[in-house]
């Protein structure tokens, strides 16, 4: 494995030498992809430098000069999408979560009721709690659905899952995912030179993502489509001319699913600085742009919420969209700070009698339950939504300051990623599915250079491993593990070959950390899926969940810290 070589290289004595400052001409401009074919022909003087610099050792290992010349990349995005689609069709009869019924119910609601009753309907417990555009989207689908199986769109038909329903709904997921494929193709086209190859690999890694496979095609949701919109919007922001469409598209995305509000600060700052304010001075406003953007966004929100506002339903709609009554942690343990917090709390229960700390007895009840629904902490202080909100915002603002100073595309995607991180790590009632909020934008820049990659690696492992508890049926166990391991091996290997060396020194601790971290995942998966059941049977079933989420939390937090450093030092 080449990261073995990498670590070995890092362990060489010259790694401890004072860092060589790169000559100015070697530093590549921000917006130019760092590995253009021209860059392949190093001049002899820099070769000298190359041998001494620990980071540069790897550059001769990747063979991009040869392939960078070639125009076409294989396998093409279309080929991958086709093969993946075939595989996903085979998954039609696989386990499906309640989300399947949720979406079927929404089909029924939007099809059989007039819009002003959509957000009041509550025959099923799975009420409509996505913003209006998604409801419109469901309405469009339901027009076809009622032709496929009219019983599917009956509100009273709770838990209806005829095979037509299953096939139809699963098929719409595959079909709408084409938007993601399209967005990724645009992303590849927007890259030039050798970076195109890296972008190509990154795009394929997103198409074949085990996260999407598990969440969308087994568990059931429409994330492929939604992230397609997000990536499309991110790619559009690459060109100056695309700022406005990008912003409007993101506004549309917010009206599809409000979880993307977590990423909105990055968009706000980026568009404010790069589009609304003059590139020369912060104090000069581009009024025309402001008007265009403002009017566009207002129009989009008007189309989405206007009809409901006309009926005076906005309070009801907001109550549906933002149910603050839910607990801190979701029923499963999303691998974030709060998972670590509750893990520490659980440990403290056993330790605190010796330390003389008070233990709240009523909280102990939830310990036996294991799954943290409404978390009450036994030793540590309780967490309020307000604290979560403040922490999230705080950690979102820090990277945004840098973005405001230098609104480049790379920093923009980086700050979107960091906003995703902050919301995932500190948010209230975070579901582990939200990890895609981090992985997806990060995938676009993970191959920028090796430092980005080393921050991405633990995220890729932990983010996907943390999704495992979503599928608990034995039949899906081989698929989720084999496919995820396949993806990790293939793409971590490919990324390793493709990521160019950075022009800044790496921190070697990070590489070691990620090596050890990745290695630990194997016994962990084995324990959680096999050994635990054999040793304890049905008892202590919260243990595997807790281990998985604590493990994943370490990875996510580690990669967050790593990426923060990369972000602020690049």
């Amino acid at each position, binding site marked *: 494995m080449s990261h073995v070589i990498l670590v070995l290289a890092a362990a060489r004595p010259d790694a401890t030498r004072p860092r060589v400052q790169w000559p100015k001409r070697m530093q590549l401009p921000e917006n130019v992809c760092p590995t253009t074919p021209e860059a392949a022909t190093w001049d002899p003087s820099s070769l000298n430098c190359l041998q001494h610099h620990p980071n540069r050792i790897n550059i001769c290992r990747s063979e991009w000069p040869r392939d960078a010349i070639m125009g*076409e990349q294989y396998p*093409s995005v279309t080929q991958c999408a086709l093969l993946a689609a075939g*595989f996903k069709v085979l998954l039609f*009869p696989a386990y499906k979560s309640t989300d399947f019924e949720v979406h079927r119910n929404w089909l029924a609601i939007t099809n059989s009721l007039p819009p002003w009753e959509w957000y009041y309907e509550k025959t099923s417990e799975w009420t409509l709690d996505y913003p209006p555009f998604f409801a419109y989207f469901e309405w469009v689908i339901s027009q076809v659905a009622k032709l496929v199986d009219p019983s599917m769109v009956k509100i009273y038909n709770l838990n209806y899952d005829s095979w037509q329903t299953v096939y139809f709904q699963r098929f719409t997921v595959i079909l709408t995912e084409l938007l993601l494929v399209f967005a990724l193709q645009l992303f590849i086209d927007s890259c030039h030179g050798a970076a195109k190859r890296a972008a190509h690999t990154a795009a394929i890694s997103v198409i074949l993502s085990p996260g999407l496979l598990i969440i969308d095609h087994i568990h059931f949701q429409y994330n492929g489509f939604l992230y397609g919109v997000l990536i499309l919007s991110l790619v559009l922001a690459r060109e100056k001319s695309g700022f406005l469409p990008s912003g409007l598209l993101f506004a549309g995305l917010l009206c599809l699913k409000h979880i993307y509000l977590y990423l909105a600060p990055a968009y706000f700052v980026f568009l404010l600085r790069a589009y609304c304010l003059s590139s020369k001075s912060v104090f000069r406003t581009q009024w025309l742009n402001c008007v265009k953007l403002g009017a566009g966004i207002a129009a989009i929100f008007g189309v989405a919420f206007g009809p409901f506002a006309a009926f005076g339903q906005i309070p009801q709609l907001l109550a549906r969209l933002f149910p603050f009554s839910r607990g801190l942690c979701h029923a499963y343990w999303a691998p974030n700070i709060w998972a670590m917090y509750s893990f520490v709390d659980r440990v403290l229960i056993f330790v605190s009698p010796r330390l003389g700390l008070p233990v709240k007895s009523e909280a102990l009840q939830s310990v036996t339950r294991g799954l943290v629904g409404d978390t009450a902490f036994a030793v540590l202080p309780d967490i309020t939504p307000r604290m979560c909100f403040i922490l999230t915002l705080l950690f979102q603002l820090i990277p945004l300051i840098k973005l405001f100073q230098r609104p480049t595309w790379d920093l923009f995607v980086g700050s979107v990623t960091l906003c995703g991180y902050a919301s995932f790590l500190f948010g209230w009632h975070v579901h582990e599915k939200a990890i895609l909020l981090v992985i997806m934008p990060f995938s676009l820049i993970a191959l920028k250079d090796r430092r980005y990659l080393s921050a991405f690696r633990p995220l890729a492992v932990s983010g996907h491993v943390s999704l495992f508890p979503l599928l608990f049926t034995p*039949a899906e166990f*081989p698929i989720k593990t*084999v496919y995820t391991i*396949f993806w990790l091996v293939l793409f971590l290997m490919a990324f390793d*070959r493709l990521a160019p060396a950075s022009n800044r020194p790496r921190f070697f601790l990070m590489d070691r950390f990620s090596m050890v971290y990745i290695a630990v995942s194997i016994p962990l998966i084995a324990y959680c899926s096999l050994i635990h059941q054999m040793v304890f049977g049905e008892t202590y079933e919260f243990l595997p969940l807790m281990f998985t989420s604590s493990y994943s939390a370490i990875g996510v937090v580690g990669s967050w810290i790593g990426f923060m450093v990369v972000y602020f030092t690049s």
Partner: protein
Amino acid sequence: MSGRPSPGHKPRRRNKAGDGHHLSNSEALVKAPAFPLASFFWPARGSVSQWELLPLILMVAAPFHQPRDLGTCIETDHETDQQTVSLWLGYHKPPPYGDYEAQRHWMEIATHLPISQWYFHDLQWWGLDYPPLTAYHSWLCGKIGSFINPEWFALYTSRGSDDADLKVFMRATVLVTEFLIYVPAVVVFTRRYSKLNGVANWSASMAILAILMQPATILIDHVHFQYNTAMLGLVVASMSSMLAGRFLWASVFFVAALGFKQMALYYALSVFSFLLGSCIFPRINVLKLFGIAAATIVSFGILLLPIVQGTLSDVKNGIVARPDLEEPPPFPIFAWLSDSLDRDAAYYPVVEQLVQMVHRVFPFARGLFEDKVANVWCSLNVVVKLHNYPTELLQKVSLLATLASILPPNLVLFFKPQKNLIPFAFATTAWGFFLFSYQVHEKSVLLPLLPMTLLLAGSHGLSREARSWIGFANMLGCWTMFPLLKRVDLQIPYAVLTLTWAYLLGLPPTSLSAYFQEGQGVMVQWATVMLHGAFYLAMVSWHIAEHFVRPPPGKPDLWVVANVGVGVVGFGLCYLWCFYRLLVEAGFISQMIPTVSKKDKAKQNR
């Protein structure tokens, strides 16, 4: 994964030039992949070692092999609860369960009954009718399963069990068996065969994936339910031992294959001709011959030993093979034996046991063909009502026709026991058996398809000509199994798996790229296109007709019969092609088609 080995690292073994570790010049110069499978392997050209590629290949193949219990949702929706399990195989209608229940039931028998009763126990309910290795395998799976949940295989009460976890377990046993036997055998065979033919590793890796993704095998074993890959894997292991020159192992593996499923007999003559031929040509080697004979006999002995030994000890302990009968009836076959043998002799129970086993394994009493299967007899039956002829005559004709079709290829193999001919001869022989022999089942098409698909690893195996024919055979084979799969509502996996495979290999209906190549005679090219095109067209239109048009009331089986008719002609062509390729490879006839390789050579010489 590094393109260049790190400075301190020395490759363990330096390969001789041209042994296929690196791409040959002509391949490296190819600008674009010729078919999608090649594009998926495109990034791995040249620098990636096979040991990095192999795990990835297996991990790709595995999820496709795990049909995620296509039951759970499809089944319960269509049918009433009673028939739920039958969706695996509603083929044997009277008792409502199919192969799944048969396999489960054998695990139940094997774990609970004394060994001497295995072949006698309640034959009406899925009595054991496979050779002993299947029974041992069932015993092992049953033991493991009972460890997890004893109710799955409880005697009598577990019959027709519809437990969801049990299904997962049963599926898992197929997958594990396949990955323990079939997959290693295919990998090793492909490595050896491609090395023998000087094929690059990169191409060999593609061939491995193509072979493992072969739709017919996946459909029958994993989507339907059977353990064919265990038998096929042992056959491949035997073939691969022949390639390696380990003839004793070859015979051991082949006996094991026979011991798993008697269907392996399709290959028996080829195994025999090759092993015998290699003892005689180029010079006679008696020692080798005796070695092979001894290995065969000893492995048969080991195969039967548990049964024989178990029977003897059961007799000693007073356990009767058939407790339900007072007086043991005469043997069902070899009736003369029961008269001439002493019923009280110590060996009698053993003989009784073995005769019963043979009787169960080879159901001579059944007809010439059972269901609608694309072989000669079944299709001939449409024209000439074969039931009007005496069974004796039909059996003889069938035997003669089979011999006539399989002797020529085996004579070639016998006189020219060259290693590269093995898959060709195996494929031709198995096609002959499939087309002409007695008691053929649709699923038997897996047997000729296997060696034919293995040809993908041979020289020019991924060339357009080979790909088009191998692909044609596979697509046709899957298509003839469609009625079988449809009966259990497996149309979707059928469509996805076959189309995926066709797509990967650039075959119709997804692409015509396999047919238009440079350097081939225009006539030959168009002839192949027309020929295959006609069949593909027939298959597609058949699917459309079958789906939308209801057969006339007088002929409810119209579509199945049409399927059989088209299938048998296509399989006949496959037989001829394999035989033709065998003759060409053996050097008996020169290739009629000017191949690309000659041109390449000419170019390289220049």
